[in-house]
């Protein structure tokens, strides 16, 4: 996978009447391990879902590969750089091999690299 730095600025998200994320700014740098921690209901999952391109923030500016853009414009790119695992991961119907091959085929990896 290509190494890339991603910077999120002014991330704002409301769910109903509750403001989950308020003007959050952070960066994910290539080669670093980032730990996200906090109390229940502070927006960790929401933030991860935004990073993974699964949940639309109300406002966000994203600097991805030195190009500043909106979440809507770069969500495809975000999805290609990230995988979001649920707390209790969902397995598609089939064997573990089927699940691995599903991912590999979606990531456009050749059959040679697929699990046999």
């Amino acid at each position, binding site marked *: 996978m290509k190494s890339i730095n991603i910077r999120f600025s002014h991330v704002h998200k409301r769910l109903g009447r509750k403001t989950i994320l308020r003007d959050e700014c952070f960066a994910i740098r290539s080669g670093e391990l980032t730990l996200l921690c906090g109390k229940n209901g502070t927006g960790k999952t929401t933030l991860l879902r935004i990073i993974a*391109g699964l949940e639309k923030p109300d406002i966000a500016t994203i600097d991805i590969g030195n190009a500043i853009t909106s979440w809507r414009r770069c969500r495809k790119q975000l*999805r290609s750089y990230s995988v979001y695992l*649920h707390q209790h991961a969902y397995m598609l*119907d089939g064997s573990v091999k089927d699940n691995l091959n599903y*991912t590999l085929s979606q990531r456009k990896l050749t059959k040679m690299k697929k699990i046999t």
Partner: protein
Amino acid sequence: MTATLLALELLISGDPELWGIISISFKVSTIAIIVAVPPSLLIAFFLAYTEFPGRRLLVTIFNTLLSVPAVVVGLTLYILLSRQGPLGDWKLLFSQTAMVIGQIVLCVPILVAMSHAALQAADKRAWETTRTLGASIIRAAFTIMYETRFGLLAALLAAYGRVIAEVGASMMLGGNILNYTRNIPTAIALETSKGEFAQGIALGIVLLLMSFALNGLFHHLQGRGQWSV
């Protein structure tokens, strides 16, 4: 008892009139289902996985249409397709095409409502997992359909069961013409009104056997938990 024996004799002897009616019935209903399934699945998918104004109203409308009697569908399409009707120029009344249209109108609400229920009940994580693993929207949609295949298959069976056994729309739109638009239910209605029970019983046996075979197949697939054919 005599009528039942006569019915079995008609079936076994390969009576051309009887088997002609059976083939018309299966042909018309199968075409109707084949045409109705793709748009119905698409509508069901949009209703289950997208949010837009009027979505709930649409779901309610499709659920309401489940209970529309076949004769009402037949009457509405009859008015539209009759010579004086807005679609009279198409000259479709009393044809197999008109019967197919009627059956499509009848089965779309069943397919949409039941498929929507199946898709809506699918684990929300399934969609997110497919998307985060890199699947396109279309591929993710097919994956979700595979995950919910038993619910979708139940919808298909219910829809097929309704259209192949309905009398009202087929009678009004097809006209019950022998060797052209006479199908199993309209033939049963006609033969019973004439007091000729043998053919009616024979056709009833075919319908029951078909229903038994389809349900047996469905339960077989469901029992295995995966496609086995």
